[in-house]
């Protein structure tokens, strides 16, 4: 992170600006042309440099796995995808250099011209959900309730796995489901295909469903 040139430039601008402003507040010189020029840099240009470069640095930071798993209910997802021993779909992709530290964003980002904006707006929804519904829950309580808002689109997988190469088409299931996979009517992450990307979350969902069914059955049988 410290090698990010945008971050270094933003912090440099902020340091210079703080120096100028504190100097002004201590010395309190008369409002001459020189003072105006100093304040133009201190209040205007340097903070603008900090904000602009800080936005870019912040945007880079929001793509990292550490950012995504900084909310406590996301910790198991981050831990699993960075676990070199895990065989989950997310972890196997996380070990790929093309995904690396940004594996959450790479798979969950939207595409198209306004994809980044749509992704960031979706991220704001996550913040809203976390602040209002998940903040007070423990990880075990939250896991069965965390679910993907829309079904994971095959188009995400097809950015890398184009479905065009002979090696991919040699697999019988791929070949037989080709049209449905491309149309998105069968998910790559279906049970029996590649499975869910975060299997532990699926297990938590199943356990919660079983517990709910058992308690409903108990209520029915009780007098």
């Amino acid at each position, binding site marked *: 992170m410290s090698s990010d040139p945008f971050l270094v430039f933003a912090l440099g601008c902020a340091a210079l600006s703080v120096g100028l402003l504190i100097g002004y507040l201590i010395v309190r010189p008369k409002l001459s042309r020189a003072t105006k020029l100093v304040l133009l840099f201190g209040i205007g240009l340097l903070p603008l440099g900090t904000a602009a470069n*800080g936005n870019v640095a912040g945007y880079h930071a929001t793509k990292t796995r550490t950012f995504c798993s900084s909310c406590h209910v996301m910790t198991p997802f981050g831990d699993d995808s960075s676990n070199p021993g895990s065989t989950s779909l997310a972890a196997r992709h996380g070990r790929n250099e093309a995904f690396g530290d940004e594996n959450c964003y790479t798979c969950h980002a939207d595409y198209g011209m306004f994809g980044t904006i749509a992704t960031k707006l979706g991220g704001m929804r996550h913040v809203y959900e976390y602040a209002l519904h998940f903040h007070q829950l423990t990880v075990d309580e939250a896991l069965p309730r965390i679910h993907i808002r829309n079904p994971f689109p095959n188009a995400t997988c097809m950015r890398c796995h184009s479905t065009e190469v002979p090696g991919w088409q040699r697999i019988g299931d791929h070949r037989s489901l080709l049209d449905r996979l491309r149309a998105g009517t069968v998910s790559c992450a279906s049970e029996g295909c590649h499975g869910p990307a975060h299997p532990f979350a699926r297990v938590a969902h199943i356990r919660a469903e079983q517990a709910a069914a058992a308690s409903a059955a108990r209520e029915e049988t009780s007098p």
Partner: protein
Amino acid sequence: MTRLLQFSCVLTLVGLALMVWSMLVPTPMPVILAMSVGQLLGTVAFGMFGYVVLVDQLRTQLRKHRAKIAARAARELANDASDKASPKASS
């Protein structure tokens, strides 16, 4: 005006603090605060600075304009006085 400028400096410092916090601790809350409140404070502070500079500039121009008018009036008064003192010379 000086007070407003000092307030603008303090607002800028607070905005910068939020932005630097978001860069050093890039978690959701600092990043959201920096990109909303931090930048809003910076923009308001810069607006205040612009207002102070504009008012100062207008005052300076007004002062110069008044001084020019006063100088012209004084010159005219001086000319009138010299005309009255030596009517032959003027005729």
